[in-house]
């Protein structure tokens, strides 16, 4: 027992190193966290908004999905509601289309034109899109419908921002 006596000098050394170490760590940790933060942020990506749609309930028939999020516009914060047409295509992949007509920005509807069933139809200038969102030649729109970025989390569909159609 007496062989391992800790001298006063050793004791002070140990405690000072220990306390100093904690102090240094306390200063460095937040700095490190700030430095790493942008990387983590990028990994989280853009904002996805949860919808009420369960992925398992989706069929090959497009359903209208409303989802809302907060938008700040100068001094006015408002709740914006966007709509998406969502379905599973023949390969079972989820397709989320923006309902905004590429002609002049009206809202397209699914399967409302009796002469052209199973197409997206714009009531304003009779523009049409096939189910995959491609514009029908000879109708006013010149571009296919935008698509939403999406991801699935806990079986619930989350929608991101609208991007130009990928097959265009």
């Amino acid at each position: 027992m007496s062989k391992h006596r800790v001298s006063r000098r050793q004791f002070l050394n140990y405690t000072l190193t220990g306390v100093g170490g904690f102090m240094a760590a306390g200063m460095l940790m937040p700095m490190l966290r700030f430095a790493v933060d942008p990387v983590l942020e990028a990994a989280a990506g853009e904002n996805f908004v949860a919808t009420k749609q369960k992925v398992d309930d989706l069929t090959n028939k497009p359903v209208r999905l409303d989802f809302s999020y907060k938008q700040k516009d100068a001094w006015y914060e408002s709740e914006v509601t966007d709509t998406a047409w969502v379905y599973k295509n023949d390969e079972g992949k989820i397709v989320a289309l923006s309902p905004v007509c590429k002609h002049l920005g009206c809202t397209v509807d699914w399967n409302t034109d009796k002469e052209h069933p199973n197409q997206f139809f714009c009531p304003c200038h009779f523009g049409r899109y096939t189910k995959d969102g491609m514009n029908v030649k000879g109708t006013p729109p010149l571009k296919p419908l935008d698509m939403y970025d999406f991801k699935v989390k806990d079986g619930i569909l989350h929608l991101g921002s609208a991007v130009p159609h990928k097959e265009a």
Partner: protein
Amino acid sequence: MKLLPKDIEMFEQAREHIDTIIVPLAGIDFGTNMKQYARMNEFLTILASEIERQFKGRIILLPALSYIASLDTESRKQTALEWKVNFLNEGFKHVFFVTCDSDWKAVEKDFDQSLIWVPAIPLEGLDDSYKRQMMDEQVRQISNIFSQKWQQAK
């Protein structure tokens, strides 16, 4: 589209596609019906902006034509009809007035089917999703009126 600089830029580029004007008719009252008119106003504002969202590329939604509800109906009717004539002269093919105020029903025939009266449903205390669903239903019905008119004119 609305009367906003951004939308008007689009309008100038695609003028031949935009042939319809929508004017909300909003009453103002500070008497016993104050709350009732406020309710109509809330409903009408939401309804009009939803219609605008649906038909953005073919209609222009104007600021509401407001009037004092207790004053006589003749002068406001004249104003509305003057607006209509003016817009038709500007080259627009359709002018629709949308209102929740039942006073207008009495003069409906002077408007030649361009007056759309919708009863205001109280929105206070309603669940958000239910509210939205109800509005969609209303917009859908009004859409039919527009579609019919547009089909006729085609």
